[in-house]
């Protein structure tokens, strides 16, 4: 049973009324009239109904398909225990401080990505960095939705008992699904409809109500599969592959680059999700433990749990551990009929896998919904319909053609997401200043004290590492269409966003003055 939250209670609401500065960050930047209007807006803004809901939202957002099909294999290939040590060290040094900063920035601003940038940047054009984050999230969701559609299709078939039916041919089943435009676009459509339905209900009645059941459900499913996997003959080989230590790999630069990529991509640092989730965080909630330590270590724990769950099965049945998506959709369905109670294991695995992917999809889309409902005259419900329809349309090419999905995944995964991270962490580190965020927001009501050495990590280390990763990808793919596309995104999107917001913000000021009069 989740504990009650503070802000929704009458008592805390009265306290917020008594101390309005705690709820409305932007008030002092505006005229008195505008301040009062802002205050009303802030006090009516949704908040997580429980601490548990916030924690599960963060975890559900960050745990995705990659935790299950990528992390265990990357670990085994990159030195096992040595890789885990490097990965763990980088989690502590980069991911935890970075996510603390992003959640803190979200609560400080109390707004979506564009409003958050507006509250700290010096020039109107730089508000466009918020547009960059928005564009990246929409693009990411447009090709992630079809992938979630795969997991939905398999979850439904696991419920129907397809994988344990006699004569089931996994490869033919997978190929038939991927080659069918109706099925691919249809599952993408179903996913976006489900996302819209959840988001339509709002933060507490929709998102929170889903994640408090889906995330524990995913963990329980993986625990059950782990118990079954570890009791299979030959399971030890899978454990030896994933957790065996090759200390020599620790001395290789490639191991650290792989670990960095895994740390920064699997934790969703700087994508705008943590900022958005943080913007709904009540003032009396802690940031460093929930937004930082729990999210990062919990997210990685799901990856480790997936390694314990899946790789013993992979090796027990002599499957290829390197096959990624096809491991999940072709190889594992081969195995379930051979296991006692295969129907149950298939059901647990694919429903859990769907939960992992779907909760991420919900929170990725929420970034756009929160921001656009604040930046336009549309209601939240209208924004949900508009955003989900837009993403559905943009996602059709990816659902229809795997090559489009692969191209977008490379371009936005390797260049767009780091760009969003640089925008958010850059705004905190160089425009707002990490010390200000630390003393005003991060250490307020915190469960642990965040010391001053957090500041240079946010200001220097994370941006430098992010730039290094982008240049490494560009160098490794020099001259390829994907690299050119990535560079176009990396340079073009910020420039266009800067120009757009210079124009729009220039128009916004006289309008705001007129409204104030």
């Amino acid at each position, binding site marked *: 049973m989740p*504990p009650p939250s503070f802000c929704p209670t009458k008592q805390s609401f009265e306290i917020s009324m008594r101390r309005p500065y705690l709820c409305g960050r932007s008030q002092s*930047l505006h005229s008195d009239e505008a301040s009062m209007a802002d205050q009303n807006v802030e006090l009516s803004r949704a908040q997580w109904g429980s601490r548990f809901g916030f924690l599960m939202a963060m975890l559900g957002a960050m745990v995705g398909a990659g935790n299950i099909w990528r992390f265990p294999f990357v670990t085994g290939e990159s030195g096992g225990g040595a890789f885990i040590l490097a990965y763990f060290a980088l989690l502590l040094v980069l991911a935890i401080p970075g996510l603390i900063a992003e959640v803190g920035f979200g609560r400080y601003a109390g707004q979506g990505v564009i409003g958050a940038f507006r509250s700290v940047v010096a020039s109107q054009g730089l508000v466009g960095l918020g547009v960059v984050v928005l564009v990246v999230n929409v693009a990411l969701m447009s090709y992630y939705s079809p992938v979630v559609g795969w997991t939905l299709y398999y979850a439904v078939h696991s419920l129907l008992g397809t994988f344990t039916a006699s004569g089931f041919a996994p490869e033919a089943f997978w190929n038939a699904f991927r080659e069918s435009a109706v099925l691919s676009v249809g599952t993408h459509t179903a996913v976006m409809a489900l996302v819209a339905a959840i988001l339509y209900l709002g933060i507490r009645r929709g998102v929170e109500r889903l994640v408090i059941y889906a995330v524990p459900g995913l963990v329980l499913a993986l625990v059950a599969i782990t118990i079954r996997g570890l009791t299979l003959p030959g399971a*030890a080989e899978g454990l030896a592959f994933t957790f065996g230590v090759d200390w020599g790999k620790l001395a290789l630069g490639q191991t650290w680059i792989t670990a960095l990529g895994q740390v920064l991509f699997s934790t969703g640092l700087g994508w705008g999700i943590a900022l958005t989730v943080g913007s709904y965080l009540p003032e009396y909630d802690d940031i460093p433990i929930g937004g930082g330590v729990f999210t990062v270590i*919990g997210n990685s*724990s799901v990856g480790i749990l997936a390694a314990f769950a899946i790789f013993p099965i992979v090796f027990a049945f002599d499957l290829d551990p390197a096959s990624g998506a096809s491991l999940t959709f072709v190889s594992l369905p081969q195995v379930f009929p051979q296991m006692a109670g295969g129907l149950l294991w298939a059901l647990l695995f694919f429903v859990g896998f769907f939960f992992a992917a779907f909760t991420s999809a919900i929170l990725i889309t929420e970034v756009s919904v929160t921001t656009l409902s604040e930046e336009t005259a549309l209601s939240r419900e209208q924004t949900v319909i508009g955003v989900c329809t837009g993403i559905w349309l943009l996602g059709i090419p990816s659902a229809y053609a795997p090559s489009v999905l692969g191209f977008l995944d490379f371009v936005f995964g390797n260049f767009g997401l780091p760009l969003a991270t640089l925008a958010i962490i850059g705004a905190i580190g160089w425009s707002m200043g990490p010390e*200000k965020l630390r003393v005003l927001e991060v*250490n307020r009501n915190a469960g642990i004290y965040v010391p001053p050495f957090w500041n240079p990590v946010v200001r220097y280390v994370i941006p430098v590492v992010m730039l290094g990763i982008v240049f490494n990808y560009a160098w490794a793919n020099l001259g390829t269409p994907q690299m050119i596309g990535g560079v176009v995104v990396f340079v073009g999107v910020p420039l266009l966003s800067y120009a757009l917001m210079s124009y729009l913000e220039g128009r916004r000021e006289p309008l705001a003055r007129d409204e104030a009069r």
Partner: protein
Amino acid sequence: MLGLSLDVWITMLFCVVAFFGVSIWVLVYTLWQEDTKLALFKTEGDLDTYSPRALRDLRRWIEIQPDPPPPDVNEARALYNDCVETLKTTDRHFYEWSAAEIERLDPL
């Protein structure tokens, strides 16, 4: 045991402790902290919002701001004073404040 080498066992043990152990502990700890805050709210009617170190940092940050102060400084000062007032007017606190520390606090 199970044909696994010692390094595999050590890595698995490390993962269980550093990942599963820390996640569960942190989850329980943060939920317990929230329960504590709620209980304090009910009995004291208010909560201290900063730990001693965090409040010192906040004061230091306010004091080094240029004159005239930027808008956030007024809010920061209000946060500081509110915390000081809460500490002086409540008997039980969320953070570990000694009576001597509270005695030395002055509003800004």
